[in-house]
């Protein structure tokens, strides 16, 4: 049975192909269109996953969309009319898009793929997210928490997963949303909402939560774990425009102008303090949710998805201070993972309890690399020679582009399309800024580390092996503080991705070889991406980047490209 899951129109559109219960391919549209978190209908991603799975569109048994379109339309209409007569422009835009296009989604999907409209199915937004969090997790039963922007009507949901069954227990309605709150503040702080939330998270580490009191009025957490957002300070129905209201500026002063200088080293940086207060308030709300969820589902295991699950600091706090022992975070926690969830859920709904579950591991999904070798490519004798060359280059402090295997399904490439750097030679941050792409000075440098050697370098939490392998948690540095201070944040935290020999043998061998060559036990691992774009799609883009940047070596599958010496 062949099922194609799709998500689109909100953020990070994606396609996932499930054949007989196994996810054989999944990819995000952004990697093809080169628009970060592209929300357009995932035409190219879906062609790619079908081709990879060797499935023709007409052979699909079902195509499942991750949302109930009419339910969302109803919510949009109702909420926009509440503001009557204010948003006439937005209302007409919404009506135009919906009446002209989105209402007919079923037929559009059917004609796009050439399948019978009866094969087009719809899960709800939260079902899809919850399924994406629970079904691929390693647990036989778990409590499931979805903390998102907004689905059709709800923003947050609690579920129970048992075997192949998933039961939605309770939901919180729009506009009470942690995702929307975080995005509105992201915009208020001068960043791009729905894209730069990680910048706000990073900013928070540099600030003091001096606005706790205001924030606890804006985000009120109740005893039953539910929360409400002071919606009159925001304009959540004005999606795509300004989503914070004038009233928010009355509380915190004028919004930061995008691009205005930001001095995080100042004694009191207003933006950093605000980000810190927001981060803390959101973590408080998450803990409230987790406690309520644990009361309803007294399990040891927690699965999380929804945009807030992309927030690594919050996930770490949830794991450290929450009531669950074991944690699984769907790395593609935004709507991309919901495409996967929708397809897996459909498989289990159609096949009942006897069906077997597919489990996700690191580096198992994402687009295939598009080969496009140049004449000067050199193919080395086996991976040992490849690892050796890259390790020597890194030990000397040079940058290495590394594009091997799949491109990852989630926010980054999980080691598939990365720029690696040695954090202990010279000023690595400066080298990356000059040699790869400019980067906000307050953003931490994520690292790759061999799973076996991580415990000596940082305080590893227990019961979160997969989130650590996906690089979805922050942890406190121990030995690493002295060894590689450049990768340690102002609060002593690091962003590690634990590399296992089973998942990524060559990258694992490279990390070991760098250490043998006298280098550090960790490497900085940034996305191999042109500025403002997602990770490279194929060899051609990687080579374009190689031409424009200071990478000393580019590894593409088994081919290497070396920088010609300046004298030659």
């Amino acid at each position, binding site marked *: 049975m062949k099922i194609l899951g799709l998500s689109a129109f909100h953020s990070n559109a994606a396609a996932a192909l499930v054949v007989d219960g196994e996810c054989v391919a999944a990819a995000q549209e952004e990697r093809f269109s080169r628009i970060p978190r592209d929300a357009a209908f995932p035409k190219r991603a879906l062609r790619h996953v079908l081709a990879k799975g060797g499935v023709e569109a007409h052979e699909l048994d079902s195509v499942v969309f991750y949302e109930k379109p009419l339910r969302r339309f109803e919510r949009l209409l109702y909420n926009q009319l509440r503001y009557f007569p204010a948003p006439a*422009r937005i209302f007409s835009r919404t009506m135009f898009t919906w009446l002209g296009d989105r209402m007919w989604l079923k037929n559009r999907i059917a004609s796009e793929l050439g399948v019978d409209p009866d094969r087009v199915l719809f899960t709800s937004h939260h*079902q899809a997210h919850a399924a994406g969090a629970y079904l691929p997790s390693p647990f036989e039963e778990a409590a499931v928490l979805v903390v998102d922007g907004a689905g059709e009507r709800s923003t947050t949901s609690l579920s129970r997963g048992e075997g192949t069954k998933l039961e939605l227990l309770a939901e919180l309605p729009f506009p009470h949303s942690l995702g929307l709150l975080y995005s509105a503040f992201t915009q208020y702080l001068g960043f791009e909402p729905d894209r730069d939330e990680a910048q706000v998270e990073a900013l928070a580490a540099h600030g003091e939560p001096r606005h706790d009191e205001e924030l606890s009025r804006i985000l009120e957490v109740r005893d039953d774990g539910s929360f409400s957002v002071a919606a009159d300070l925001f304009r959540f129905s004005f999606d795509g425009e300004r989503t914070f209201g004038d009233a928010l500026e009355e509380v915190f002063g004028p919004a930061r102008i995008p691009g205005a200088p930001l001095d995080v080293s100042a004694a009191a940086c207003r933006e950093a303090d605000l980000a810190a207060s927001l981060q803390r308030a959101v973590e408080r709300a998450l803990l409230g949710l987790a406690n309520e969820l644990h009361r309803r589902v007294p399990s040891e295991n927690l699965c999380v998805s929804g945009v807030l699950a992309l927030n690594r600091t919050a996930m770490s706090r949830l794991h450290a201070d929450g009531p669950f022992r074991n944690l699984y975070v769907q790395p593609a926690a935004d709507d991309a993972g919901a495409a996967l969830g929708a397809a897996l859920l459909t498989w289990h709904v159609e096949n009942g309890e006897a069906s077997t579950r597919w489990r996700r591991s690191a580096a198992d999904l994402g687009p295939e690399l598009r080969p496009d070798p140049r004449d000067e490519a050199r193919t080395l004798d086996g991976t040992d020679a490849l690892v050796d060359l890259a390790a020597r280059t890194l030990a000397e402090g040079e940058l290495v582009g590394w594009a091997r295997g799949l491109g990852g399904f989630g926010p980054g490439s999980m080691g598939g399309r990365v720029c690696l750097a040695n954090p202990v030679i010279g000023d690595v941050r400066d080298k990356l800024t000059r040699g790869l792409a400019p980067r906000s000075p307050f953003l931490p440098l994520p690292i790759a580390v061999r799973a076996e050697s991580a415990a000596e370098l940082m305080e590893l939490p227990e019961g979160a092996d997969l989130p650590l392998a996906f690089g979805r948690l922050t942890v406190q540095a121990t030995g690493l503080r002295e060894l590689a201070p450049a990768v340690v944040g102002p609060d002593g935290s690091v962003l590690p991705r634990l590399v296992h020999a089973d998942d990524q043998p060559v990258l694992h061998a490279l990390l070991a070889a760098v250490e043998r060559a006298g280098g550090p036990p960790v490497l900085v691992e940034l996305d191999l991406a042109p500025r403002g774009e997602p990770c490279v799609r194929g060899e051609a883009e990687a080579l374009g980047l190689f031409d424009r940047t200071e990478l000393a070596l580019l590894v593409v599958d088994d081919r290497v490209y070396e920088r010609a010496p300046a004298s030659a």
Partner: protein
Amino acid sequence: MRFTPSTWFQRRAYRGVWSDPARKVRTLESFAQTEADGGNEIRAAVSFARNDALKGHLARHADDEVRHANMFTQRAAELRAAGVGGPVGDETSDRAFDMERSRGDGLDFHGDLSGSPIDEIGEIPYVAKLHVAECRAAELFAIHSSLLDDDPETKKVFDDILVDEKYHMGYTNHLLREWRKEGRASEVKSALKSARESRFLGAWKRLGIRSAGGFGRVTMFLAYYTLAVPFALVAKRGRLAVGWQDPVDRAEPDAIRQQY
């Protein structure tokens, strides 16, 4: 060639291109570039095609396009050698070229392939795109040839190329028909539709949608202040729910067939 009102307009539009020697040379060189780009793009597609028949056709097609590029380059070089069009980089000839260039879609016809590799858009949409582009190319080349009665050598270049274009139209059409026969008619139909939209209608269609969009939005704007008023009043009086709600999703398996 068959003359229609559209070809009449196009002949008028392109007459100036071929009667001005500087523009003629630069246009031939630009065609050479377009053909070469198209050829490379198609060559790259060969290794990604999964259908053997398609692979063979694409390989031959790619060779043809590269040969066309060389034919255009060579003809342009002959004209330059004969003192037509001035030296490369000459101001008048550059300006003439840029004027032509700014018309965009009118003269180029293979540019649309770049950015839509076969492995990303799929074989049917790719072949549909090729088919539409080749039909358009054949039509344009016939027009160009008909305007070159005073330059038989250049005319011959177009006429020779036209023979290949017929083959390109033919094999793409054949493959699409095979797919139709295999029960994939709706895929072929939608691929052709979207290829046509992105090709010919290009700017005009976008403009059309934009004005239609404007009209639709004005209607919605008016509706907002009239029809929507009673609903708005209801919505404004309704209380927004707060706190935990029972989920609306039903557990029955058929729930996934509903859009609501």
